[in-house]
C-alpha cells in the first residue's frame, strides 16, 4: 500500500467516479436476485427501487449487475409480477 509520500494530496480522490470499481457484489453473503424473464413486464420498478443501481436496463428486459448487487432483496419485494426471486448464493445460477 502507499506510503505517506505516495498517498494523494490530503487523501483527495482524484479519479472521478472510481466508486464504480468497488466490487460491492462481494458483500452478497446469503442470497441473490434472479429474474424470470418470462414473467417480467418491464415495468422497471426494480430499476427505480434498487438502492445500488444494480439493475441494468436493456432493450425490452432488465438484468442484474452482480458486480455491484449487495443482495438486499428490495427488487424482489417490489416486483409486482413475481419475476424476481431471491435464491441462495450457494445455488448454481
Amino acid at each position, binding site marked *: 500500500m502507499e506510503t505517506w*509520500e505516495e498517498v494523494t*494530496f490530503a487523501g*483527495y480522490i482524484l479519479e472521478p467516479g472510481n466508486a464504480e470499481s468497488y466490487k460491492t457484489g462481494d458483500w452478497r453473503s446469503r442470497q441473490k436476485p434472479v429474474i424470470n424473464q418470462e414473467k417480467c413486464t418491464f415495468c422497471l420498478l426494480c430499476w427505480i427501487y434498487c438502492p445500488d443501481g444494480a439493475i441494468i436496463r436493456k432493450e425490452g428486459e432488465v438484468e442484474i449487475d452482480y458486480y455491484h448487487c449487495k443482495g438486499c432483496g428490495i427488487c424482489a419485494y417490489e416486483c409486482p409480477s413475481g419475476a424476481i426471486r431471491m435464491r441462495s448464493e450457494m445455488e448454481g445460477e
Partner: protein
Amino acid sequence: MMARKVLALNGDEAAAYAVKQCKPDVIAAYPITPQTIIVERLSDFVADGELDAEFIAVESEHSAMSACIGASAMGARAYTATASQGLALMYEMLFVASSFRLPIVMSVANRALNSPLNIWNDMSDTMGARDCGWIQIYNENSQEVYDFTIQAFRIAEDHRVLLPVMVCHDGFVVSHSTEGVEVLSDGEVDSFLPPRDPVYPLDVEKPVTIGCVGVPEYYPEIKYQQEVATKKSIETIKEILREFNESFGRSYGIVEEYRTDGAEVALLTIGSISGTAKEAVDEMRAEGKPVGLLKLRLFRPFPIEALRKSLSGLKVVGVVDRHISFGSCMGGALNMEVRAALYEMKDRPHVMGFPTGLGGRDIRVEHFLKIIDELLMIAEQDALEEEYKVVGCRGPGCIGP
C-alpha cells in the same frame, strides 16, 4: 520611491485594511467582541463597492468556518475573523480546514474564554486551538497585524504550504488601540500577492472528492503527510518573510531578539505584552543588569531551531504565557513547548513560566521588573524552585496585581 502613507488604524482596522488589499473572494464572518470592528469595516468595504467580495453574514462561527471551507475548496480566497467563544464554536471545523489543506486566513482578536464571562484579552482561545493544524502568527501591534495579514495569504496559498493561517492580535490592547500604520499601495500588495492558484479546486469538469472516509489503512499516512507539510512550512515562511522585508523595508524575523547581546537572563514573550516587557528590559539595562528579550512570532509551526539558537548561552529564561493550561506541568503551553524544545540541549538555561495578564488584567512595566528580579535570582542560585508563577493575581504564590 514615494513615501508610503501612514494611517491611524487600530489593530482591527489594520487587519480589515490589509484584507481589503488582499482581495478575498469570500468573507464569511460573525461579529464578536473584540473582533467586531474587522467585520464592520469589511462589510462596509463590500457595501461601498471598494471590495468585490461575497460577504456572507452567517448565523454562527461554526457556519463561518464551514462557508470558508466550501469557498476555499472551490478555489476562492476565503477569509474570516473571530475571537474567544467564537473560535471555540468553530473548533471542529478548524481541523477540517487544515486537513483539507485549504489556505483560509483568519484573524483572531485574542480574548479570554468564559466563565466568568470576560470580553478582555488573553490567549486562552488560540492556545486552546494550537493543535488544530493551523499556522499561528502572533502580533505585537497594528503595524504587525497589517504586515502579517498580507503575508498570511501568501504563506497559506504557497503550494509548498497549503495550510490555513491564524493571524492573532491581542483583544483591545491591539484591536482597539489606534497607532500609525505604514500601509503599502494596492499595487505593492498586488505584486507581492498574486491571485490564488488553487491545486485541486472543486470543478464539475474535473471532479475530485474531498473529505471522504479515511480508514485506519490510510489515515496515518494522510496525517503524517500533513505533519510533514506543517513542519516544512517554516522554511517557506522564512523565505516569504525575507521577501517581504526586502520588498518593503521591514526587518521581521520568526523570533525577534531585543537587547540580547551579553544577556544572561531573558524574557520570552508573545503578542502585545512584548512591548511593555521591552520597556522593563530597557530599565534593567540602564541599571546594568544583563537582561534581554525574545519575542516569538510564530507558535505553529514551532520554530524550534531558531529558538534553540537564540536561547543558547543564556542562564535563565522567563517564559511569559497569556493563558493557563489547567493542570499541566508548566502553567502555560508556551512554557511547556519551550522547555520541551530545550530538553536535549547540552547547556540549556533554566526555564520558568509566568502566566500573565489573564482576562485583560493590565500588566505594567513593574510586573516585568519583578519577573526579571526573579530570573536574576535564579541565575545567581543556579536553581529553580518553581516551574511557574502566575503574574498579575492577588494572593499567595502569585506575583501581585
